[in-house]
Each structure stands twice: as structure tokens, then as C-alpha cells.
């Protein structure tokens, strides 16, 4: 397994390098000069001298050829230095370190909700395939997957926050106050989690249906084993590999979807930070945040792959 992990990590270096190149190029192809972004909001009232503009361009290393900028950036990244965010006036690593817990808690909470709803719904639909409730569950999953997260969020705000006053609209809760954090997390996590729950439900239903048709399930039933045991020991366990894959992908997608939900619910986090840094052409912050996201998705996928062996001991990594 160690060799497998080393091989995957080596592949990750290449993947991350590709992400770095794409981000570096894309952000520079986007129209808009970061120095203009830095100065434009004040310059009509606080005219900057050409010397000062040149100085800012130099400080942001934008006065050098692009290949040189890229090389310097790679050297810095290898040394663990992601640069300084000029919009935040802080090192990129510090900004990301401060914001990432909020995105992680949102992603994990949405995953929890997605799993909590998606797996039971999928299992039930699979176990009762063709029944009325299966159609209902399938329809609910389809609707849930089709609705944009932004729309779900707005509906939750209008109904549960403004209408019934059950949950707050904005904020992340008081630091260290776990119930308050959960209280503020409920709606955004639900908005982010419902679409994923629908996806997991669909995949779980398919996996369960496939396993239910296997000989060993028929044998277990023929042996007179209780239906619940058939479900838990024989069906669910064997259906878990495709489900685990979907759950892993779900966490990655939740990280990506956090931008919309964080913005809608006025939450801080890496998602809203990426939106802001792209808007302001804060190259260092965009590159740093995307790099962290890419590493996060890679680690999730690696964990899922390693989890296969735990779920099914017959699986060997070569």
C-alpha cells in the first residue's frame, strides 16, 4: 500500500503543477489590471503618482516578463511561500489558514446532511424498487438534484429564517460556541447538502439494486436470515464501494459549491474568498486558494481510494 501511496503522491505533484499552470495563465488572461484594481477605487480622490503606480507594479512583481513571474512563483510555492495578498494585506497562507476552517465545517456539515438523507433514501428506494415510495423518492432526488443551490438557499432563508424564524440568515456563529456554530451552519449546510443528497440517493439506489440481484443475497435470504441483517451485512456493505466514491466526490463538489453558499449566507470562507480575489484580481490569493482546493480534492480522492481496502479486504493496491 505504501508504494501505491507514494505513486499517487508523485502523480499529485504533476496534477498540482498542471493546476498551478492553468490558474496562473487563466488569471492573467482575465481582463483587468491588478494595479488598476488596487488603485481605481481611490485614485479619483487620491491621485496616485506614476512613480507610486510603478512601485506597486514592482512590489506585485508585475513589471517582469510572465515566464519570469511564473518561475519566481513556482520557486516560492516549493518553499512554502504563497506570496502576499494585496487586498488583505497579509500573507496568502495566513489568509487561507484563517478562512479554511469555515469552509471545511460547511463542506463536512453538508456532507453529513447529504449522507444522512441520501443513503437512507437510496437504500429505501432500492429495497422497494418499483413501489410508490420508490417513485416518490426518485422524484424527490431528481428535483433535489435539479434545483440550483442558490435557489434552495433563498427558499430556506425565506421559509425557515424569515418566515418561521427558526434559523439565522447570516453569520458563522460565535467562535468556540459549538451549538451556536451548528445553529448558523444548519441552513447553508442544508442548502449545499440537498443536491448532494439527491445524487447520493440516486447512486445508492442503483448500487443497492445491483447488489440485491447478487447470488449471495439470494442465498442469505434462502438461509432464512432476517431482512435487516441481509440489508446491513450483505447488501449495504457490498454497495458501499460505489457509494463511498460518490461521497468522496460529493465532498469535493461541496468545497467547490461553497463559493455560492458562502456568498448567499454572508459567511466567510475560501469559496467567498476566491470570488473576492478573482473580482479584485488578487493573483496571489487566487492562485493560493485554488492550489489549496486542488490539494484538498486530491487528498479526498486518495482517502476514498484507500478506504476501498477497508470496505472490501479483497481489494489490493498494486
Amino acid at each position, binding site marked *: 500500500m505504501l508504494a501505491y501511496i507514494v505513486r499517487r503522491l508523485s502523480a499529485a505533484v504533476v496534477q498540482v503543477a498542471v493546476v498551478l499552470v492553468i490558474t496562473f495563465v487563466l488569471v492573467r488572461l482575465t481582463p483587468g*489590471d491588478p494595479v488598476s484594481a488596487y488603485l481605481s477605487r481611490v485614485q479619483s480622490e487620491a*491621485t496616485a503618482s506614476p512613480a507610486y503606480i510603478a512601485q506597486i507594479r514592482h512590489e506585485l512583481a508585475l513589471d517582469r516578463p510572465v515566464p519570469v513571474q511564473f518561475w519566481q512563483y513556482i520557486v516560492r510555492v516549493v518553499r512554502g511561500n504563497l506570496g502576499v495578498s494585496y487586498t488583505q494585506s497579509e500573507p496568502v497562507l495566513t489568509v487561507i489558514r484563517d478562512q479554511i476552517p469555515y469552509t471545511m465545517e460547511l463542506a463536512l456539515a453538508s456532507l453529513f446532511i447529504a449522507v444522512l438523507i441520501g443513503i437512507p433514501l437510496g437504500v429505501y428506494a432500492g429495497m422497494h424498487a418499483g413501489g410508490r415510495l420508490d417513485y416518490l423518492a426518485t422524484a424527490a432526488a431528481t428535483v433535489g438534484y435539479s434545483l440550483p443551490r442558490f435557489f434552495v438557499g433563498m427558499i430556506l432563508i425565506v421559509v425557515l*429564517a424569515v418566515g418561521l424564524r427558526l434559523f439565522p440568515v447570516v453569520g458563522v456563529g460565535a467562535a468556540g460556541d459549538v451549538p451556536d456554530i451548528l445553529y448558523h451552519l444548519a441552513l447553508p449546510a442544508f442548502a449545499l447538502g440537498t443536491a448532494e443528497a439527491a445524487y447520493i440517493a440516486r447512486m445508492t439506489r442503483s448500487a443497492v439494486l445491483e447488489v440485491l440481484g447478487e447470488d449471495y443475497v439470494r442465498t442469505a435470504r434462502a438461509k432464512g436470515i432476517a431482512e435487516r441483517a441481509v440489508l446491513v451485512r450483505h447488501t449495504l456493505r457490498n454497495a458501499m464501494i460505489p457509494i463511498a466514491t460518490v461521497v468522496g466526490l460529493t465532498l469535493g463538489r461541496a468545497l467547490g459549491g461553497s463559493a455560492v453558499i458562502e456568498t448567499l449566507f454572508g459567511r466567510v470562507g475560501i469559496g467567498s474568498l476566491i470570488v473576492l480575489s478573482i473580482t479584485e484580481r488578487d493573483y496571489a490569493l487566487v492562485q493560493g486558494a485554488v492550489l489549496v482546493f486542488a490539494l484538498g480534492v486530491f487528498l479526498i480522492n486518495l482517502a476514498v481510494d484507500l478506504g476501498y481496502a477497508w470496505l472490501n479486504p479483497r481489494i489490493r493496491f498494486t
Partner: protein
Amino acid sequence: MPLRQWGILTLALSLILAAWPGTGRAQQDPRPAVRARLQFARAGGIYDPARWRYTSDWFVYPDLFNWLVRWKPGPSPNQLEPDLAERWDVAQDGLSYTFHLRKGVQWNNGYGEVTADDVVFSFRRQMTDPKMTFYEVLKNVTGVEALDRYTARITLKDRDASFLWTVASYRPGFIVPQKAVLQLGDAFVKTPVGSGPFQFVQLTPEGEVVIRANDGYFRGRPSVRQITFVNIDDENTAAAALQRGDVQVIWTRGNPDVVKLLRGDPKIRTVRVVEYDNLFQVEFSSTFKPVQDARVRQAMAYAIDRRVIAAALPGLDEMGNVMRPAQLFGGSNDVPTYPYNPAKGRALLQEAGYANGFPVTFMIQRREPDTTVAQILVAQWQAIGLQVRLDVLDATAAFDVRDKENFDVTIDATARPGDPNLFFWDLFDTASYPPYGSNYLHYNQVDSLIDAGRITLQDAQRAQIYHVLQQKIMTDLPIIPLFYRAYVLAMTDPVVSMTPGAFSMFWGDSITVRR
């Protein structure tokens, strides 16, 4: 875990979450804490006013710092009043200003009394360091000196009648404590110390700005013990948060649906504030040939029916057809105007040699009300024969395109409050070509009038100069005035009222609350 146990666990968790009160702890201080939406929501986090860059930070400054003199709080500044200086004298030649400070005003956090040395330090640090935001603005200031512990004098190179309005009481004019700035160094940006009605507590990792009442404030004790400024980017979310009571004060601009929603809620009090010195206008590029002819600009002005724009922005912006309306000092309504008359517009186009119109790229920034207004203008300009292509860009790309004058026609707002000098200079002076100013057409006909308005000290003479200036610019029409920006201040319990601030200033000490 069996399914039934999962179900019970889920139900229990839901009930706990639903029942959790979320806020509220016993407090010693009976005054309420208030949460307010940070206007132009954006996590700026620069709380040294000399390094100002983001409007959302400016929103908080008046609660933390004082000027020597200040605009009397209100929507459109039209009067100066004493702040740290209880009175001031202007030399007869207009080249020096002497400020007599109040005695006994204290800096927060135990940094002692506000003195003339702090005034000298506050200006000199901005005048000597090019990295300071207002370094260029203060180039007309030749000296700042302390005459004694409570008297400071500022000397100018050239006479500037707008000095008190646009320098001493505006962007570069905040006074900071010398001792705290020197002691804290760069940390002052994130842990500022001032003499205002509130003291800075923290910018939380959650992006909220927390300030606490300064009970020793020289104008009196604020009626709220704490204000937390919350970043809410989306207008609809902000309105929902107010309705839910998550925040007690919000500002909203550009979204009529939100205004309608708030006005329909009996628990919410709204105040519409029109900023007559915040003009929304059509701008032309010096690089686009057809609009170099004044008749073309006039034709485009005649094509605009402001009633359609007003109908699209109900409850918000105030339509107007002059640059600076008469209710402001230096404003005038007695100027040429261009009421809706598309037939006249077509005739002017023909006269200018564009009987078949011309193709024009109309660049706008993706935000409201720009997109709504732009769609109306496209239809109205097409009606007189122009072939208009709309180019919608995000904020930074739009800034860049404007700075490089790489557009034909655009729309934007210009807010230059207090004194007419800054407004006219920024839009119409030859020293204000992009990227340093907003004179995109490179208009060059009123420099001498702008200079005269600045160096003339008598108000009556200045008003006459600005009247002549506006007659000239409304004839030449280097920009087309469309409307004056408005915002809606909305409050809910326990906030009963507050003074709406001009130009993104939150007067926290003006809040009154229900006991």
C-alpha cells in the same frame, strides 16, 4: 447503527438546533448591542485612515476618529461644524488655517489627551510618505505646525476655498494619536486608536468589525454599547437578515424589489436618502470620433426619457437633468437642459453628418442599477438610429477599460461631496484625464472657471462662477447627467432612528433605541 436509531438521533439533533436561542447573554450594560450591514460589503480591514483604500472601511472610520472640523451629519453635507477644533480662523489671504482644539478630549485606550502635536503628526505622516493614500492630495499643504498645545496651523501653497470641505473635513483630515501610531507601527492598521464615539474592538476572523461605545466621548455617551458590522454581499440576503432580526440596520442601493419588500414590512422603518452630489451620468471617450461633436452628445441626451428610468427604479434614484442641482452650494438649475425629444435628437444627428446613426460600444459595469439603466438607454438610443452594442464587464475589467479609455460610451456615478470644486475638477478639468480622474472626453473648456472657483474665497462670487461654469458645460455636454443616487436606510427594533450618513459614513452615535 440500526435505521430507527439513526432516525431518533436525527430528530433529536434537529430539535436541539431548532430550539437553540443562538444569541443573547446576560450583560451588565443595559444598552443594546446593534448589528449593522457593512455598506459596500467587502472585507477591507484597513483601519488606518491615512492608508484608506476600501469604501467599506470608510463606513466605520467616523465612529472611530474625528476631524478638526466635520460636515454636519446628514445625507448631503451643506454645513461645517466643529469637531476636535472648537473654532478656526482663516487668514485673509486664504493661505493659512488656524485651528483651536477642544481641551480635555481623550484618545481611547489610555493614549492621553488630543493635542496640536497629534494634528501635526497626522498631516505630516501623509505629506512625507508617498505610500500614504492622500500624499498627492496634500501637495498643496506646505506646512503644519503646533502653535501651542491646543492650537495648530496649516499653511497652503495656493489658495483653496474648498480646503475645509474636501481636505480638513474629508478623506485626509482624520486625526490620529501620534503616540499610538508610533508605538503600534504597522499594527495600527488592524488595531486603530481614535477619539471617536466608539473604540475598535476587533476585526473577527468571521469578517465582522466590532466597535464598543466610548463612554468618555466628548459629545456624550452613545446609546448603544456595541456595534458589529456584518459583511452581507447579497441585497436580498441583507433584507432577509433585517426581517429576521439578525441585523438591525442595513443600507440598500440599486434594488427596487428589496426596497419594496422592506417598505411592506410593518416592523421595519425605512428612510430614502437622495445624494444630490452623487451624480449618475453618461460618459464619452476621447477616443471615439462621433461623440467629439457636441451635437452628437446633445442628440443622445435628447433621446433619453428619464421617466422610463424612474419607473424601473421605483423608490430609489432621483431623476435629474443638471450636473449639480440648485439645492447644493455651487449648484444651478438655470442652465440648458435636454428634455426627451427623439425627433430633435435625430435632427441633430443628421446635422452632424450621422443621418444613418453610427455603431457604438456601450461599456458598463455588471452591477445595479447600471444593467437596468443600460438596457433602457440602448433601446432609446437605437430609437434615434444608433447601432448600440452592450459590453458588460466586471468591476475590475471596467476600471481597466475606463482607465485605458478603451470604450466608446459608458455610465458611472461620481460622488464628490461637500464643495463643488472637487466635483467639477474631477469631471471636467484637464488635469483630471484618466487614469487620474474622470474627464474621459478630455474636455478642456472650463479650467479657468474651475481655478477661479477654487481660489475665490467669497461664497457669493464662487456661486456665480459655478453658475457660469455649469451653463458652459451644459451647453457643451461632456457628460449627460441622468439622476442622483439614492439609498434606503432600513432599521428594525431596537433601533428607532439614526442620522443617515453622506457618502458611506455610519454615524453610530446618532442611533436612538427603544428601551
